[in-house]
């Protein structure tokens, strides 16, 4: 099968949906013909679809999302890009109070098919305002779907589903994933929300991972094979809705659970998954649930400091060995 990058897979999804449906349009800072997006995801799209549908905006995150909400409830399907995940804080009222609640508080009258794309993640030395992983903020917002693709295949299929839906979707990307290559079929496909993917089957321990951590989890699993430790790597792919069933089923099989995510440990993605397994499968556990996450700090700048806080293969392996 053909191999393309995560970045190209996202762009293909946007291009296909824009060709298929004239109500789909993009807006964001520097996404148009002059720059093509800070991470080049939208490069070339303005040339094909014009500046109206690939719309450069002022640096006004709140108005970017608010405008997207207004367009979505009046018949359009906007895909808004926020250049860095940290900057979603600037638009939080429009995301959490407006987009996510507009259907509910008006008694189901409004349809808000809006996608917000943004990259999270540390590892490129751009410090505290451009590196956080904030997926858990949005898991706490009812009315919003939260999508976390780890591979080019998942990124394309999930983005197409997001664009065709009827509700707001918070679509998390990761800076280090953009250049990663993977197999992506040339035939059209979509991936439903709420269906986890077992990225590697195993029998000794369930390792749940999201976004870039899926790749570190797979590296750790390969390493542990040498020591006859057989790891099952489960990628939820969407955090809202969360495929509890697949996670619980895996834990029932392996009897052990380690969760690795790049966000802060406290009240993070891993906390929710641990709570679900504690509620639904505690009797199947042969060891305590363990979490590998970032410590509760902002992301520092200097490379040794930054590397210290990001979960890596070593910390994953060490944690797995603690429960085996």
């Amino acid at each position, binding site marked *: 099968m053909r191999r393309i990058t995560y970045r190209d897979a996202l762009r293909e999804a946007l291009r296909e949906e824009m060709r298929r449906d004239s*109500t789909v*349009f993009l807006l964001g800072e520097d996404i148009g013909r002059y720059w093509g997006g800070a991470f080049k995801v939208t490069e070339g799209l303005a040339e094909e679809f014009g500046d*109206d*549908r690939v719309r450069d*905006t*002022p640096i*006004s995150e*709140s*108005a970017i*999302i*608010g*405008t*997207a*909400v*207004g*367009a*979505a*409830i*009046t*018949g*359009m399907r*906007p895909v808004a890009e926020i250049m860095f995940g940290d900057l979603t804080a600037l638009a939080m*009222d*429009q995301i959490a*109070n*407006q987009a996510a609640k*507009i*259907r*509910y*508080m*008006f*008694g*189901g*009258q*409004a*349809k808000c098919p809006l996608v917000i794309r943004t990259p999270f993640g540390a590892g490129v030395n751009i410090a505290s305002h451009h590196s956080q992983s904030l997926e858990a903020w949005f898991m706490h917002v*009812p*009315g919003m*779907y939260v999508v976390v693709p780890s591979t080019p295949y998942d990124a394309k299929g999930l983005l197409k589903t997001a664009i065709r*839906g*009827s*509700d707001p979707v918070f679509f998390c990307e990761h800076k280090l994933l953009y250049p990663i290559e993977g197999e992506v079929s040339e035939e059209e496909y979509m991936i439903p929300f709420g269906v986890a993917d077992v990225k590697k089957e195993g029998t000794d321990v369930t390792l749940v991972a999201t976004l870039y951590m899926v790749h570190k989890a797979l590296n750790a699993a390969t390493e542990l094979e040498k020591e006859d430790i057989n790891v099952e790597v489960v990628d939820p792919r969407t955090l809202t809705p969360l495929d509890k069933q697949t996670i619980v089923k895996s834990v029932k099989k392996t009897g052990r659970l380690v969760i690795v995510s790049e966000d802060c440990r406290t009240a993070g993605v891993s906390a929710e998954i641990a709570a679900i397994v504690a509620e639904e499968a505690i009797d199947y556990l042969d060891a305590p649930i363990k979490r590998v996450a970032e410590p509760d700090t902002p992301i520092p700048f200097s490379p040794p400091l930054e590397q210290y806080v990001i979960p890596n293969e070593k910390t994953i392996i060490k944690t797995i060995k603690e429960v085996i």
Partner: protein
Amino acid sequence: MVNPLALEITRDKLVEIYRKMVEIRFFEERVFELYAQNLVPGTIHLYAGEEAVAVGVCSALRKDDYITSTHRGHGHCIAKAADLKQIMAEILGKKTGYCKGKGGSMHIADFKIGMLGATAVVGAGIPIAVGAGLSVKLRKAGHVVACFFGEGASNQGTFHESINMASVWKLPVIFICENNLYAMGTRQSRVMAIENIADRAVGYGIPGVVVDGNDVLAVYGAMPEAVERARIGEGPTLIECKTYRRRGHSRVDAAKYRPKEEVEEWLAKDPIRRFKERLLQTNTLTEVEVQQIEKEVSVRIEEAVKFAVESPYPAPEEAIEDVYT
């Protein structure tokens, strides 16, 4: 006060404008009474005193044009010809309300008539109106969007971000600032060094107009140029309507922060009384006709109250419906 005879406006339209204003006033006074009887859960922000703004604006719109509204939004709904029964039922938290009891007084919407809803976060509806304007432009749909907000909202970042965006993209949005002088208890002069919010339009390269917001024909008269600009793609206009609320900010707020003389001065400029006097002076309406209109409106309001009071509450478990499609 603008002379109705000076505008190109039919008698029927004048009567309709008067009727709408009376509808809002009577509606709000009944909401106040129902609140005192403990029939309204939560809080209320009454529009009484500001009727000329909503009615002046909405009377100049097409039926399918859009509006966005605020926490003080009952008047916008009524002016846009929303159903009185469903508004009242929503305020009382009933299943038959516009939002099935999920929104309440601060969150009424009727998407069928282009009423895109009231947001209770101050200034948050402004970018949403701009988005509706962008949608209209992209779809080449031809509507305009009237965006209501108070002078307090003009200190929010969303006001500045949104008007800049609407201006640079030449979107069909009319920004209607209802300047009632007070953001809750904070007088404008304490938080702004300017007197006219409309002056802010200069910073975004769009026309800014100040009108007497207690003169419905002044508001109505300011609209055609803004509507025309919007429809032909020349972009937005900011219209500031100077007005005053008859009661406090919310619930039982006695508004003691407002000087007595100021209150008296504004009550003397009551928009409904002024307009009625004009209609009588110009022989557009007779006293008997005025009384007839008021009687008809009262009957409709009482029907709405009866409907709302007699309607059932939603079943508790409906609380978990409508989160996702």
